[in-house]
């Protein structure tokens, strides 16, 4: 009569606690997950919900080791966040093999719901396809029709570059080249920026994230690149804008799944988060909250923590909260929800702390994400 294996539901937040993405996910993701568990009441089906977290240090092998240990020894039922695509890519197959659920909020690689999809994975917050379409298309439309990429040389960066290249070409622009730098580990972007400058492209597309984005934007300014060429930050988080300052970031287009100042609901939740964490939530952190909530509800509804049953329930039920409205998880594992194209405000337009974005438009879910048919996921074919 055991409905819950080993008498509890255990969630693991596996994230980058100290590295380049610690700001945009990291401890904030843990806080978000904890709030979700609290909001749910701390218990599901009358049994306690436990939360563990660990630092994968952005290393794929560390991440897969921790996941293995969590599953084999720690009875973890679902692994949350998995910021950085290389760690997510390492953990997903391990989890799937052992029938555990992964809820991706941090990583962007489109292939996680494409050729790399698994039966037990939900890609929750955003993906590269959405970023490329949101930002890429808009920038080309504004006249930025020749591109050069500055790409973090790992699965996420390459996939973002690839997705954006398609969008730029489809919109009639051209891509003049790319400089790929080792990441994590690069802090001096000057030589890559010089390559970008030498290319003569109008737009330098930043296919990177977190601290890399911040550094490359700063150094582009230092080397006098920015006034002549424009930067397109393909994945920019509110924490990045915060550490860059509006002066450096102003005018930049970006695509996001979440902004704290969208409506009353988002403001209410974000203020709570701010009180606990001291920073406004990024879309990743908001996504972690929403995904944990959705998972726990599904366990409740299914009456078991069996992964197949829970996955079925999660797919069945639409997500409707401050993060997403009426959004559904496809057979490929992708949660399709509305995205927002935003523009960074100039300092003079910012009325209060963290008042950084002006929402240019809402991209409806169907436009924001690839259709199920367009995905190379074998699960979606049936």
């Amino acid at each position: 009569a055991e409905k819950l294996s080993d008498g509890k539901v255990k969630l693991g937040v596996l994230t980058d606690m100290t590295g380049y993405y610690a700001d945009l996910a990291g401890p904030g993701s843990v806080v978000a997950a904890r709030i979700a568990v609290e909001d749910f009441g701390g218990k599901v089906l009358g049994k306690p919900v436990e939360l563990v977290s660990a630092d994968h240090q952005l290393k794929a092998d560390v991440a897969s080791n921790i996941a293995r240990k969590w599953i084999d020894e720690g009875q973890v039922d679902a692994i949350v966040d998995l910021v950085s695509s290389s760690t997510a890519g390492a953990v997903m197959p391990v989890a799937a093999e052992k029938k555990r659920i992964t809820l991706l909020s941090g990583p962007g690689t489109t292939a996680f719901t494409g050729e790399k999809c698994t039966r037990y994975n939900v890609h929750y917050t955003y993906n590269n396809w959405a970023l490329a379409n949101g930002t890429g298309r808009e920038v080309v439309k504004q006249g930025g029709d020749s591109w050069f990429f500055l790409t973090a040389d790992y699965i996420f960066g390459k996939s973002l570059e690839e997705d954006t290249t398609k969008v730029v070409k489809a919109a009639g622009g051209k891509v003049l080249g790319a400089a790929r730098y080792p990441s994590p580990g690069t802090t001096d972007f000057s030589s890559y920026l010089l390559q970008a400058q030498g290319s003569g492209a109008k737009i330098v597309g930043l296919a990177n994230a977190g601290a890399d984005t911040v550094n490359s934007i700063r150094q582009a300014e230092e080397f006098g690149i920015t006034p002549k060429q424009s930067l397109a930050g393909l994945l920019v988080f509110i924490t990045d804008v915060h550490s860059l300052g509006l002066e450096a970031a102003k005018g930049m287009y970006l695509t996001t799944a979440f902004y704290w100042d969208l409506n009353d609901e988002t403001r209410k939740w974000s203020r709570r988060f701010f009180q606990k964490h001291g920073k406004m939530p990024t879309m990743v952190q908001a996504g972690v909250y929403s995904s944990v909530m959705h998972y726990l509800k599904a366990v409740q509804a299914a009456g078991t923590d069996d992964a197949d049953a829970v996955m079925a329930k999660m797919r069945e039920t639409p997500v409707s909260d401050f993060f997403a409205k009426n959004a559904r998880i496809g057979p490929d594992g992708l949660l399709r929800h509305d995205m927002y194209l935003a523009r960074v405000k100039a300092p003079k337009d910012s009325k209060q702390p963290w008042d950084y974005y002006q929402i240019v438009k809402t991209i409806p879910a169907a436009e924001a994400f690839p259709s199920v048919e367009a995905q190379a996921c074998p699960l979606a074919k049936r």
Partner: protein
Amino acid sequence: MTQALFGQLFLGLINGAFYALLSLGLAVIFGLLDVVNFAHGAQYMMGAFAAWMGLTYLGVPYGWALLLAPLAVGLVGMAVERTLLRRLQGLDPLYGLLLTFGLTLIAEGLFHHAYGNSGFAYPVPGWLRGGVNLGFMFLPLYRAWAVGLSLAVCLACWFVIERTKLGAYLRAGTENPKLLQAFGVNVPLMFTLTYGFGAALAAFAGVVAAPVYQVTPLMGSSVIMVVFAVVVIGGMGSIGGAIVTGLGVGLLEGLTRFWYPPASSVVVFVVMALVLLVRPAGLFGRER
């Protein structure tokens, strides 16, 4: 085309200036103490952090950091020499390498624990903001300053070591420390001071590097590997040799970045292999 070449060469020169400064400190320590100071990278990192912490917590400006950070790290270095390195005297020099390796892990781990990995930007001081257009590239003023300052310090060190009384002690000690002590020089103190000085030199490089690269706990270990290769190529023969090889390797990397960017991080090691084939003792080295 040539624009890009000059640009990359210039960036190479910046890196080269740091390599030169670091391999110089390494050579000084190795010469006198017979220790390959693996912790050199960590000391470089600590210099940068000291500057950043000074600015963030105490408001110490860049100019003072150039002075104070090396001093602080130098003192730590002296304490290390007094308490730990000294016990290894007379043993195989490999133990010195291993000890300093362990110290590197400790330092990196502590800073990583306290500050994470993503690093901090150290703002370019106001009076060095902006830049000049050289035609082939836009040169940030600070980077020009970094090259100039590093080279000036290298030359000053070279001058002190090759041309002054203090340097004479150092050179004599390198040759025969026992005998120098038999002439009444306090060689143990000299060892301590030299190690402290080497560490301070690394820290100085760290302060200069802080606004160029990010201030991160791992900033030292990536550069120290290249510096070791520089040392193998140059051969620890002379102070001048260390400086010249450091700059040369920086330029070479710049050149490679122009022709074939992916090879730029390996070229120094390839050159190392080639040099070993032709001159096992290195370009400026003496057979021991």
